[in-house]
């Protein structure tokens, strides 16, 4: 079905169902319970999960298949965001033209950077992409402020000359991004007992685009083009000897991957019309790399898991403060309570980086194939079946 093999189809359907029911799955705890802190089912974070999922899927097409490690992928994310916000400012608040333009602009950007950077391989390639991205970031923050609005980030204002649409709404507000009238930020809340589930328009738009991107990625992985990219990864020289020029293939992969990043950037701007220069900083590029490796480079689902993992820590753990921890352990006697809080304190709130760093190390030490391998081990344990089934699993080929 859909031209997918059985394994791929199962995977795709699992992802689709999870994406569809994310508002339920991510909100397992009743709203007024102490554990509600760990709920991630609010629109902004769900949107970020799928958008960064798109980014990581795209990155994986380049890194997972060809082995080229781009350390400047955030530049495409940033360029996509700027393009989308400019589209909102100048043309229309509809998200379709914004998304299209962000993909086109980042694609063109990727052609230029890819053409130059792909003349080198290995770490030399990484540093070239890093250099381009850092140049973009530094310039966007300072000299290019007329285009990027520098430090503050490009925002929509009340006096934008919007061709199709109004500069300001009737009551003096800024118009909202929409899909033919369907506002991205609008959402409905479903209350069932103590639970509250939020269904956001923006999230479902982003989720559908993510599913399309995921589907395209599967097709690329399974296509002859994908095979060619794997060949480049395993031995580029041998490919040359057979008379094939690898460059057009790697460039194509690079551009596709850049367009995925641009799409993600455009979507970020659609959900929240702001484009900040920090999106292009090397730390942001590094984050994409980490997401992919953390989840499992070269696997289809791994990067999405990795993206979710990092975004979850960033948005959930950073919000746990001492007050919250005290509330959790308030059942303990006073002295013990303070002791437990003191133990937890360095790892949450302002210490969320520490927890993240520790998780990086633990995962890479104990799960060499990333989160996907963790999932495999669990399912293997549950099924108590020999591993040969998984080793051949089409969807989960560990990184080289």
């Amino acid at each position, binding site marked *: 079905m859909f031209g997918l093999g059985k394994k791929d189809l199962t995977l795709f359907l699992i992802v689709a169902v999870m994406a569809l029911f994310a508002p339920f799955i991510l909100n397992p705890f009743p709203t007024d319970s102490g554990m509600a802190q760990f709920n991630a089912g609010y629109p902004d974070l769900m949107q970020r999960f799928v958008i960064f999922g798109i980014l990581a899927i795209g990155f994986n097409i380049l890194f997972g298949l060809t082995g080229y490690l781009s350390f400047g992928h955030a530049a495409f994310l940033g360029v996509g965001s700027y393009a989308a916000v400019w589209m909102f400012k100048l043309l229309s608040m509809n998200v379709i033209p914004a998304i299209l333009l962000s993909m086109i602009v980042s694609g063109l950007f990727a052609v230029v950077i890819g053409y130059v950077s792909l003349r080198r391989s290995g770490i030399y390639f990484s540093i070239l992409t890093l250099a381009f991205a850092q140049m973009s970031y530094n310039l966007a923050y*300072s000299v290019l402020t007329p285009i990027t609005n520098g430090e503050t980030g490009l925002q929509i204002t009340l006096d934008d000359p919007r061709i199709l649409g109004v500069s300001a709404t009737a009551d003096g507000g800024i118009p*909202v991004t929409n899909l033919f009238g369907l506002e991205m930020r609008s959402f409905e809340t479903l209350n069932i007992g103590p639970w509250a589930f939020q269904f956001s328009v923006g999230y479902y738009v982003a989720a559908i685009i993510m599913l399309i991107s995921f589907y395209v990625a599967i097709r690329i992985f399974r296509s002859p083009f994908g095979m060619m990219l794997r060949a480049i990864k395993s031995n580029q020289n041998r490919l040359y000897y057979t008379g094939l020029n690898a460059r057009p293939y790697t460039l194509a992969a690079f551009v596709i991957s850049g367009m995925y990043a641009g799409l993600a950037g455009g979507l970020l701007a659609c959900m929240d019309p702001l484009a900040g220069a920090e999106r292009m900083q090397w730390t942001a590029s590094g984050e994409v790399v980490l997401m992919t490796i953390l989840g499992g480079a070269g696997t289809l689902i791994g990067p999405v898991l990795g993206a979710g993992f990092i975004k979850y820590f960033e948005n959930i753990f950073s919000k746990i403060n001492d007050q919250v921890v005290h509330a959790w352990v308030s059942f303990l006697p006073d002295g013990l309570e303070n002791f437990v809080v003191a133990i937890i304190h360095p790892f949450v709130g302002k210490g969320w980086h520490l927890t993240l760093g520790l998780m990086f190390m633990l995962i890479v030490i104990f799960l060499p194939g990333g989160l996907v391998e963790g999932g495999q081990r669990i399912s293997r344990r549950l099924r108590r079946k020999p591993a040969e089934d998984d080793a051949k699993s089409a969807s989960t080929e560990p990184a080289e």
Partner: protein
Amino acid sequence: MSKTTLTRRGVLRTGAVAGAGVALPTIFTASSARAFTNEPTGGSVTLGFNVPQTGPYADEGADELRAYELAVEHLNGGGDGGMLQTFSSKALEGSGILGKKVEYVTGDTQTKSDAARASAKSMIEKDGAIMITGGSSSGVAVAVQGLCQEAGVIFMAGLTHSNDTTGKDKKANGFRHFFNAYMSGAALAPVLANAYGKDRKAYHLTADYTWGWTQEESIKAATEALGWETVEAVKTPLAQTDFSSYIAPVLNSGADVLVLNHYGGNMVNSLTNAVQFGLREKQANGKNFEIVVPLFSRLMARGAGENIKGILGSTNWHWSLQDEGTKAFVKSFGTKYGFPPSQAAHTCYVQTLLYADAVQRAGSFDPCAVAEALEGYEFDGLGNGPTLYRAEDHQCFKDVLVVRGKENPTSEFDLLEVVEITPRGQVEYAADHPMFAGGALGSCNPGV
């Protein structure tokens, strides 16, 4: 085929849930039923404290958070009440806001506009925060202010000094208590002219981003009006850590004053480098060479150590002030945490009180009612003397402090001494001043 079955089941399940949703519309809390975003319905109200907890401003953020916790304690009737006793408005009684207990959530801005918005959004969407406050840089303040405008909640800015926050990027839902670059220039220039003479040649080093530019513009305008000449103004990259190559040419440029339009780590490093080059022991144009840091903070002064001694700058507030409001605040902060508060802590504490007071006076949490209560509001007793929240741009007008790095500090917190309290009249400007032109407040947005 097995996979078809799976699909059909998936589809069926989807249909069932969707059907349940449609069939039982009563279980939806129709969002239109609410008058404004996150209207508090229970016995408590949630405020969102969005401060940098990681990155270079983490210590400043930690101090802001301490102030917020103190403010919440005082609003709920705990502690010694702090500035509630000295505040000119007596609407707040220490029984929460409008009788609702004040609760709070915290988040990490990372000093990135993107992350700050994500954090603020989670507070609004997940935790039901009715007001967002905090931040330690102008980029973040402007970005979060824009978000709060769109979402329909009030934003009470934390530490943000750029003219743009209440200038070209002002928003109807956003309010700033902190002073701005223009006020720094207006307050500092006369003191500089007094101390160093009117015939001076200045060399500016400016952080190459929006805040740096507005400060350079403001200081240049203010000093040039008093007869100073600007020899050169050089932009330095934000990521710069070693400023030697920018400082080395200063002495030979004909300038006799160096103005450092830097903040945070940039300022600590550029000042340290300038002192290393021995600029302060040099003579130029027959005068002693001087360094000026227009925006000071105690935390930065600590980072710069000895180098700060004798250097003039401006701040929004300092704990050594002797008015009743300051004394009450320093006492309760110092008793709770063991050291005096920073200016960032002060502005955050005051902003929280001002918000609570406005709600109390308006009798409603509706952002539009709160904004109306804050606009044109005159108050006193919060450490800065009589203060006005101007209606036209939501900027507070109050006295500005000119300070100098102390020669003989008694502790690691006692680093600045107040040289002059510049009266409010001297730092006021017209709402349509060219440095603040180009934006519009718009109309207040209650959300939903």
